């Protein structure tokens, strides 16, 4: 299976040929903005208007002081991803917005599982699943144990499915995806440097 195919929406499951204009893939949209309040709702409104569902979203300060980074994943066509990023970038306080396929980024996602201790003791599949998936137990008490698993969405879901068969899972939570681009150039830094140069030429800003 093409690694860009989206597991979450499955819309392209029945399509004969992948990667056509119509084919929907999972895209990761990375947005850098000034740290102004209210931008999240502006960004999410752009997805709503184009009828694209946000699969995951993560917002935090970036490595550049004063700049916030949004990591959004969604299933859509390439031309839609292109339009979404352009419309997002149009918002005044957005510095940059770009979309990526999974092969262009290093991805990580984390999860927490709350597991029933009595089931874990009674059913050996629980501890073997935890071991086999390389999950980490962070707490155990007579009622429950807490496990942490970091990896790809598929890794995490595989652990969850294995544990869920045993009836041990009391709670499960996945974080949104975070990622770093594989590119050797830093687009944001280049943009900021370019803008700093242009600041000196007021003509370019009229």
């Amino acid at each position: 299976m093409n690694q860009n195919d989206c597991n979450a929406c499955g819309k392209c499951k029945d399509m004969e040929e992948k990667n056509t204009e119509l084919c929907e893939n999972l895209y990761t949209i990375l947005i850098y903005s000034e740290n102004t309040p209210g931008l999240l709702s502006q960004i999410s409104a752009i997805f709503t208007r184009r009828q694209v569902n946000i699969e995951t979203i993560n917002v935090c300060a970036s490595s550049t002081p004063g700049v916030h980074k949004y990591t959004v994943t969604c299933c859509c066509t390439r031309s839609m991803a292109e339009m979404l990023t352009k419309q997002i970038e149009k918002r005044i306080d957005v510095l940059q917005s770009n979309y990526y396929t999974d092969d262009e980024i290093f991805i990580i996602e984390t999860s927490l599982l709350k597991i029933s201790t009595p089931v874990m003791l009674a059913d050996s599949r629980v501890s073997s699943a935890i071991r086999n998936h390389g999950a980490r137990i962070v707490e155990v008490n007579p009622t429950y144990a807490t496990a942490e698993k970091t990896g790809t969405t598929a890794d995490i879901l595989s652990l969850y499915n294995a544990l869920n068969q045993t009836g041990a899972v009391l709670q499960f939570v996945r974080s949104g995806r975070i990622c770093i681009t594989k590119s050797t150039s830093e687009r944001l830094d280049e943009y900021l440097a370019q803008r700093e140069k242009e600041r000196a030429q007021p003509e370019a800003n009229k």
Partner: protein
Amino acid sequence: MTQTDKTVNMEQITGAEALMKSLLNEGVETLFGYPGGAIMPVYDALYDYRDRLNHILVRHEQGAVHAAQGYARVSGKVGCALVTSGPGATNTITGVADAMIDSTPMVVICGQVGAAMLGTDAFQEVDVVNVTNPISKWSYQIRRAEDVAWAVSRAFYIARSGRPGPVVLDFAKNAQTALVDYQPQKVDYIRSYQPKPAINQEAIEQAAYLINHSDRPLLLAGQGIELGNAHNELLALVEKADIPVGCTLLGLSDLPSDHRLNKGMLGMHGNLGPNVQTNQCDLLIAVGMRFDDRVTGNLATYAKQAKIIHFDIDPSEFNKNVKVDVAVLGDCKQTLAAVTEKVHQIRHTEWVNSFEKYEKEEDEKVIERAIHPKDGPLLMAEVIRRVSEATNNEAILVTDVGQNQMFGCRYFKFTKAHSVVTSGGCGTMGFGLPAAVGATFGAPDRTVCLFVGDGGLQMTIQELGTIMEQHSPVKIILLNNNYLGNVRQWQAMFFRHRYSFTPMLNPDYELISRAYDIPAATVTERDKLDEAIQTMLTTEGPYLLQCAVKEEDNILPMTPPGADVDKMILEINDN
């Protein structure tokens, strides 16, 4: 700057007065508004600035925003509206949305409850920033008097630069009354905002190459040319490379109507030639237009045979509706000039002449009978053409929405730039009357002719009060057909003549007009029309001329919604 200099330059004033100074700094001369509780400190400050800021009291906040739009469209300056919180602000929503989709520079300042009360459902509190975010270019809440100078300058910079649009400033009451050490500010750089993208030489080369290798080029001229003041650059390009032009609704005064290369209006009710030839040309050159569905019709068959070049200042317009071969990003005043330098002086005589056939057909089947009817009731088209000619085709056309708008745009003629004020993307009934008021302030030396229907006039009819008070010289031509005509036409064509709530019982508009001290007349007969128009135009100040036009007239030609752009209907059997 030394410490002492700084203190000398500073003065302690209220945030409300800081707003006045900031507006003056931005060159504001006229603003349209309506007071109320949460904006009272601003109105109090305004009282002392009446000699420098001309505030026009409208009769409804929707009137304020449309007037600001009309002002902006004809003057090229940023229109400004001032209203109170809650209902005052929500009454401006239609105008903000309208200005957004039609790229009109405007700043709306509305009052807001004090910052301490925000989010408590205080009296007349509405979350204006969130309501307006998706329909404005920028929406910002001023919560501290210290931010006034910066926020106002930023607002005007954003509204006027790049692709213009509306900006909303939500001005909390505590920030209006608090004292501040006022220092003027000039925002002309925002690092996250690039209003004027750098020109890509490669795109210029590619565009010139395609133009030089085209036998049948067609240029689609949009409002971008008006907004970028690129009229001369457009003319230079099309004359050098002999390119016929079709104009969008908002681009109708991009070049004179009678220019030999102006082949008329695009779109659903546009002219036959440019629409049919869109699917015949080998190169489509779109300039400052956005391939609206009212222009393209069915996208699946739209200009499939042609290469497409798109000039625009907004990168998010490229490939949005129509996939393009060359995207020329930038201010079209510069990009057009750059391309013109590289194109060859050529003639496309046969291609240019090929429009004649369609002109002749449209003349015979549609235009002649619309502007020179032999008998029967008055027709909208003839009234409009006569008014246009009586102004030497030099007036500003303002329209409302409906048949009056489509006839107005088809039959009015233009010799000057910045001459069309109409609600394009939003199609807002009620836009016309207040927009015309704004136009008289934006272009005080020009004649402003408003064509409005009996439906749309009543949507903002209260602005007759503004016209009375200001003695604004709006020439109101009411095209009364006793119908919501445009909807009635669709009912006739697509809903088996089932006239569901489109006939309308009308009041005596002459009486209403006179009640507002606006001279009025009604014309029903063809041989009285010219005289009535002359009286209207020579009467100083406002005037309302009611024309009793044919009730069930149809605006033709027409590309039915979703149909192919070259499949225009010229005639319908409507009886």
